[in-house]
């Protein structure tokens, strides 16, 4: 942690980066994203199991991008990212949203994070994405901090099991999802925290035509949640922020995970794996399955 602070401070002092996006501690079991431009403020930076946010989302914010822009051109931004968050960076590079050369990736050698703020870090409270994590460090990082430790074994229970839902008959699945989506209040927190939801104006805010009904009744909620999952198909890197941000506890990542599985199963594609890969949507293979087509 001290190393990170020192390193970040150096970066700012040497004006190598325009800002450092990191975490600060707010309360015992809670951190908050922080954008630091003053070298002395780097002492606020922390790295721990409560660094839940995927800070990559900030890299694409107009306000943050403006920080990096000066008369002379674009300056680098430094971002603190967990190895799994770096997958989002990879996806964003593939989608022309950020340039690797404009970025300084400060990675944390991660040993898992908690499922939500306020929880004690132990096997019971391990975040779902960490359960079968295999990216404790990333080759894309410019510099990694902290030691690699083992991720605790998950001893808790997940509320929804993907495979169980897959087993349900279609009508039950529809019932399940409708019940879940009915809770949606369309606060779009899922969209706001998603690093891959970077559209200037979201499809759901478009009125000519009205792509998705803005009302949060069943129909509008169903449309929104399906389209959200669809737009993230083959793109979602599984950071799970949408589900964490959802105030109504909708198991959003079920859909995302299912689509990630499908992408792999049908096309052998894993999002955020390599910047050299062509994106799943936007490329094709003549040998793609023709099974669906009469």
């Amino acid at each position, binding site marked *: 942690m001290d190393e990170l602070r020192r390193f970040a401070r150096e970066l700012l002092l040497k004006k190598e980066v325009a800002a450092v996006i990191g975490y600060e501690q*707010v*309360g015992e079991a*809670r*951190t*908050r*994203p*922080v*954008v630091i431009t003053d070298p002395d403020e780097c002492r606020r930076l922390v790295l721990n199991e409560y660094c839940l*946010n995927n800070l990559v*989302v*900030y890299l694409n*914010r*107009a*306000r*943050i991008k403006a*920080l990096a822009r000066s008369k002379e051109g674009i300056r680098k931004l430094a971002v603190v990212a967990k190895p799994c968050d770096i997958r989002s960076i990879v996806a964003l590079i593939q989608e022309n949203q950020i340039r690797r050369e404009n970025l300084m990736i400060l990675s944390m050698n991660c040993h898992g994070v908690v499922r939500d*703020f306020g929880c004690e870090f132990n096997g019971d409270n391990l975040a779902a994405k960490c359960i079968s994590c295999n990216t404790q460090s990333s080759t894309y990082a410019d510099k990694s901090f902290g030691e690699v430790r083992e991720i605790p074994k998950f001893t808790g229970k997940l509320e929804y099991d993907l495979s169980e839902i897959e087993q349900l008959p279609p009508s039950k699945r529809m019932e399940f999802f409708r019940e879940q989506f009915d*809770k949606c*209040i*369309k*606060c*779009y*927190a899922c*969209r*706001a*925290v998603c690093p891959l939801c970077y559209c200037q*104006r979201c499809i759901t*805010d478009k009125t000519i035509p*009205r792509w998705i*009904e*803005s*009302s*949060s*009744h069943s129909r*509008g909620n169903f449309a929104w949640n399906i389209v959200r999952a669809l737009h993230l198909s083959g793109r979602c890197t599984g950071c799970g*922020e949408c589900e*964490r*941000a959802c*105030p*109504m*506890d909708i198991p959003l990542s079920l859909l995302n995970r299912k689509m990630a599985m499908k992408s792999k199963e049908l096309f052998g594609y894993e999002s955020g794996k390599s910047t050299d890969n062509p994106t799943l949507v936007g490329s094709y293979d003549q040998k793609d399955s023709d099974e669906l087509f009469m």
Partner: protein
Amino acid sequence: MTEEKLILKEDLLRICDDVIKKGDTLLAPGKSEYVIVKDVSEIKLDPEALPTKISFKSYVFPKSEPVLYYKRSKNDVTLIDADVNGRKIVVLGAKPCDTGSIDIMKDLFNWDYRDEFFNLRAKHFIMIGMMCKTHDEYCFCTSVGCSPVSENGSDLFLIPLSDKEFALRIVTEKGREFIEPYFRFLCDADTKRTEEVLSAAKNPETAFDPDEVHEWLGRNFESPKWDGIGEVCLSCAQCAFACPVCHCFDIVDEDYSYSEGRRMKNWDGCQFGHFTLHASGHNPRDIQSKRYRQRINHKFRYYVDKFGKILCTGCGRCSRGCPVSIDIKEIVSNCKD
């Protein structure tokens, strides 16, 4: 008019059972929201629970409701007035920080033009508040003139004396009307014991003085503090939608067939970029810092000026649920020089 009685939990549940049997709606705090109780065994009545993730706002001001139906034909349009279902809603065990919310919003929905959709629903509310015996780092009811023992907004108010018994205060006439048929379940209260419990309430520390905040906001429309928040805030509306008193809405038409449709009134949030976006592309609050400034000003200054009330109950939901941990208490506390 406050009158105090004693009621056993099992009797209270009996009353609830009766409410459900009558076909009225019984709401109680659930896991993350106020839920319609179908069976009294679901009722927890835990004074130590933190506020639910969202308030019961949607039952008085639904997240989405039709205000009219229309039918188009060749040249003509026929309108059908939407109606509000006048069924009674009993809220059991509402937090003191929630009970007052309807009163706060009432002013807005009734200045000059009266929004009967809101009023009719509010009229049918029976609010059974309950003393709150907990708080966390985000609670600040005491800073905005509320408290864990506030009866404000409640028709009936419960004070948990033990696991099994409650002191029941009849706060309003509406409350009395509701409880009267069940007087047989009530017995005389030991007011001294109640007072003891009340005085042991864990008040969250006062974080700020709303008057000072009001004054500071008036002077600091342009303050660098807003920029800092604007950098971190991601422009979702979790805070607005979870808030018990945020009341902005949108009106949209949606067709459900070729010739028919309905006009919907939907929740909207001032943190959304398109909230104030003109069709021409001009946007008066184009960046997040301006939008967050509006949020704080609206709650702690404009609403106070307009309606004499703070548009905040101190429940802390917006902070607790904020995906990027923005703490309204911290921000408002910092609204000083």
